[in-house]
């Protein structure tokens, strides 16, 4: 297998890991909102023992696996903006599932976010793990 093919395969794997992390992140917010709605009139405990909250935690676990896979290959400043794609996803679900009102500002903002994420796409050569220095905090 050529180096180019190997690199392309590695890039696809990283892209798949990022996409899966984004989907799981959006799912976690949606299930958390559902858990919150199920607890209206009850206490926080009602929300935290809800199956919807457990579903949100399951999504977060899925995100954790895929996100670590992505961060092994991509610098944080390159990878992190991609998670913003969960905003237009959540916007759509908020409108369709939860009947939350959306307007032109939401749509324009969502479009800007998608365009911003597109600008942040990683360079083709960024496929190798990078070393980072110790956090100073």
């Amino acid at each position: 297998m050529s180096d180019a093919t190997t690199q392309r395969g590695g890039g696809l794997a990283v892209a798949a890991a990022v996409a899966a992390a984004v989907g799981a992140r959006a799912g976690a917010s949606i299930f958390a909102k559902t858990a919150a709605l199920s607890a209206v009139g009850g206490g926080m405990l009602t929300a935290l023992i809800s199956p919807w909250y457990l579903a949100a935690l399951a999504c977060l676990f899925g995100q954790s696996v895929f996100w670590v896979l992505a961060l092994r290959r991509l610098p944080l400043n390159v990878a992190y903006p991609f998670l913003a794609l969960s905003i237009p996803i959540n916007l759509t679900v908020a409108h369709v599932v939860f009947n939350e009102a959306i307007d032109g500002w939401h749509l324009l903002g969502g479009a800007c976010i998608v365009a911003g994420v597109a600008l942040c796409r990683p360079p083709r050569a960024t496929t190798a793990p990078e070393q980072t220095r110790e956090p100073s905090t």
Partner: protein
Amino acid sequence: MSPEVAALGAGIALTVAAQLLLRSGASRGASFLSSFLNPRTAVGYGLFLLTTVLNVFAMRVLDLKTVTAWAALTYVLTPMAAAALLGEEVSRRTVAGSTLVAAGIVVFSLGS
């Protein structure tokens, strides 16, 4: 400031801290498992768990779209923190993209 808004703000700060820990942990392991089980990774995900509790608390009052929009501030703060604390090089494209994302957040927040 209501407790729900304070919870939202705390969740934003903890999310940035968690991402820094995750990148730090992920870049250390020789294998995926060692990265995933790195103490920094574990602490990062512990902070995420706390963030979910804070978000559920906040969303008892706030709309999902409102929480999502404000939480998007992390998309600007995290690259800045990665450059300052992890020593990552931030390209012009990333600066431009993050700025556009931030503009999108502002525009998004103008909605009713």
